[in-house]
């Protein structure tokens, strides 16, 4: 167990979480960011890195990835610590409403203590989409996997991988030497994956070392969490059972609120209600900024999230430095702010 501590833990490294680092940094507040994605940027980086955004003030047009890159540059002087590819699983309240203290635990055996939490989790954490197959839950983590932690599990097993993207193709190639037989099932004979992976897969099929089936899985068969076969509807209409031990469906990612739902915060339709002066939740010291919060007049806009992060940071100062008075300053004129930014 890795035990860390900081001033503020920011849950979510999307544009709003990143900008919060900046506003906190100006107030001498250190922060750590946690995100389930392996890279910073949230939806901007994962869903629409190349799509133009037209409503960021001062930028007539900017792509999702450019915005993220700029934010990373902007917060660089504050040296935030990133915990990427990790999900916050648990949150404990250690302090009191007047002197908040929290401990969050990630799924990577890490705990971080902080005086305030900023939930900037957007639409929730990105998690694997689950195909609508009856009884799926019962097989999860025993026979159905959305990611692979232990390759050895698949040794000498018959593995079916479903999908046509890079994840599907990568795992076909990685598991092929380990599994007794790999079958790839995809709805069409075209792939949204690196051409060399597709070529390698086709070569294996041509050599008879693995199978490719054009079709879709309709039914799971097995018992006690162990698959024995999948019913497959082939593109030509034929329906048959394919014997297998494991299935890995790759249908991309979706956003789910996840463990935050169990943190004892007031929630309204999976959003966190906040006041509009401090953007604080029903628990003092826990703030919610960006798409995850709600208040009268809320708009899910990046620019609104920036404002929310700024006001939340002001209030967080009160918790981090209870005895220090906060004086408002401009970055254009304050030499102390400019020193923090490394420009003076």
């Amino acid at each position: 167990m890795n035990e860390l501590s900081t001033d503020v833990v920011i849950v979510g490294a999307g544009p709003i979480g990143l900008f919060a680092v900046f506003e906190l940094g100006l107030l001498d507040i250190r922060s750590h960011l946690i995100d389930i994605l392996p890279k910073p940027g949230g939806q901007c980086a994962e869903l629409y890195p190349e799509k133009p955004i037209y409503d960021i003030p001062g930028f007539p047009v900017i792509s999702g990835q450019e915005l993220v890159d700029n934010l990373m540059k902007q917060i660089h002087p504050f040296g935030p610590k990133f915990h990427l590819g990790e999900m916050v699983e648990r949150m404990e309240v250690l302090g009191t409403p007047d002197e908040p203290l929290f401990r969050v635990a990630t799924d990577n055996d890490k705990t971080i203590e902080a005086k305030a939490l900023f939930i900037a989790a957007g639409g929730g954490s990105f998690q694997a989409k689950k195909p609508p197959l009856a009884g799926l839950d019962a097989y999860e983590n025993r026979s159905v996997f959305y990611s692979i932690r232990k390759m050895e599990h698949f040794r000498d097993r018959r593995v079916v991988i479903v999908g046509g993207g890079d994840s599907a193709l990568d795992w076909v190639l990685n598991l092929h030497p380990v599994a007794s037989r790999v079958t790839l099932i995809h709805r069409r004979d075209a792939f949204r994956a690196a051409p060399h992976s597709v070529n390698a897969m086709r070569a294996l099929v041509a050599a008879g070392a693995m199978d490719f089936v054009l079709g879709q899985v309709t039914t799971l068969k097995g018992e006690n969490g162990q698959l024995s076969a999948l019913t497959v509807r082939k593109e030509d209409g034929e329906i048959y059972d394919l014997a297998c031990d494991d299935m890995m469906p790759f249908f991309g990612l979706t956003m789910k609120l996840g463990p935050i739902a169990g943190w004892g915060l007031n929630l309204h339709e999976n959003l966190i209600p906040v006041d509009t002066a401090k953007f604080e939740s029903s628990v003092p010291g826990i703030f919610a900024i960006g798409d995850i919060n709600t208040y009268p007049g809320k708009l899910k806009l990046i620019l609104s999230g920036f404002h929310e992060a700024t006001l939340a940071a002001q209030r967080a100062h009160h918790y981090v430095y209870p005895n220090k008075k906060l004086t408002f300053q401009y970055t254009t004129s304050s030499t102390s702010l400019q020193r923090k930014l490394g420009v003076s």
Partner: protein
Amino acid sequence: MTKVTFIDASGQSRTVEAQLGSTVMETALRNSVPGIEAECGGACACATCHVYVAPEWTEATGKASQMEEDMLDFAFEVRPNSRLSCQIKVREALDGLVVTTPGKQG
């Protein structure tokens, strides 16, 4: 006024007015039609606005683009008449369009 009919997986149907130039996805959201999530907000990046176009309308709506086909790989129970509703723009020729929403989006 152009109209679009949404039929959900249980067969319940709703006809709503659609603005010319807006997408079928936007039309659904504006009218609180259930069954369309549109997680990415119309960027053709999530496949959670998947619909089945009624057979008599598939010619008028046309085929999915290459990018849309790629995204449809992330949808469930894809059929030949599957489209992402954020990629269908409402035109006069689509007045009366009928689409069915799948049982599960994401």
